[in-house]
C-alpha cells in the first residue's frame, strides 16, 4: 500500500468504516510508515480537540429571551 492509497482511506479508518481485511492492511502500512502514523494520529487528535472544546459559548440571557419569545407565540397560538 502506498501513502497515497492510505490517505484515500484515512477517513474510513478514523470513522471505523472499513472491513477487517482493509483495516489490517491499513494497520500494516501504519506500522511501516512513520509519516502516515503522524498524519493518522494528529488528524484524530484534531477531531477530538474540536469535539471536546467549546469555542463559542452560549451568550448569557439568550435562553431566557428565546423562552420569552416562545411563550409569546404560545399565548397567541396554543
Amino acid at each position: 500500500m502506498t501513502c497515497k492509497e492510505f490517505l484515500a482511506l484515512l477517513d474510513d479508518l478514523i470513522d471505523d468504516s472499513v472491513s477487517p481485511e482493509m483495516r489490517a492492511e491499513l494497520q500494516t502500512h501504519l506500522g511501516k510508515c512513520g509519516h502516515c502514523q503522524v498524519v493518522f494520529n494528529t488528524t484524530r487528535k484534531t477531531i477530538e480537540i474540536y469535539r471536546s472544546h467549546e469555542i463559542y459559548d452560549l451568550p448569557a440571557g439568550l435562553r431566557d429571551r428565546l423562552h420569552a419569545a416562545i411563550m409569546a407565540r404560545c399565548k397567541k397560538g396554543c
Partner: protein
Amino acid sequence: MATIQSIAAENEPHPDVALVERVRAGDVSAYDTLVRKYERQIFRIAQHITQNREDAEDVMQDAFLKAYEKLEQFQGNSKFYTWLVRIAVNESLMRLRKRRTGKMVLIDEEIETEEGSVPRDLADWAPDPEQNYNQAELAEILRKTIQGLPPGFRIVFVLRDVEGLSTEETAETLGLSIPAVKSRLLRARLQLRERLSRYFHRKKGRPAASPKKTRTEK
C-alpha cells in the same frame, strides 16, 4: 436479513419523539426541554456558518421558533435534532446572504484548493498539545484555525465531526452528494490538522499566542 432484535431496535422510538408529542399536545415545557438539549449545538452551528455573534443569536432564536411553529410538519421519519439542524443551517445561510448582498454563499459550489490534500507538516505533536495553552488561548487558536477554512469545508466538518451528524444526514442537510461530503470532510480534517500543527508541534517553543487578543466569552 434483518433479525427480530434488529427490527425492534430500529423501531425503538427516539426519546425526542415523546417530547415532540407532548409539545403537540400543548405542553410548552416539553419544548423547553428540547431547547435546553440542543441550544448549544444550534448556536455553535449558526456561529460557524455566519461567523457573527449577533447573527448566530438571531439564527438560534429564529430556528427554534420556526421549528416550534412548524412542529406539525415534522414527520418523525428523521430525527428531531437533524430536522432542527436543517432549519438552523437554512436560517444561517439566509442571514449570511442578507448581510453579504450580491455575494452569494454557495455551500454546494466546487472548491478548488489543493491545500491539505497532501500533508506537508509531518512532525509529530506533543503528547497533550492543548496543555501548553490556557483555555482562552486554545479557544482562540481553534476559532482562528477553523475560521480560515473555506465555508463549504467548515460546515461539513462542524456537522459531521463536531455535532455528530452522519455522512448521510450531513449530505441531506446541505443538499450535497455523499461523495461530496466525504471528499470535503477529508480535506477539512487535513487542512485543520496542517494548520494546528503550527501550534502543537513537539519540542517547539510556543508561538506567540497573543493573550491580549484572547477574549474569555463566558
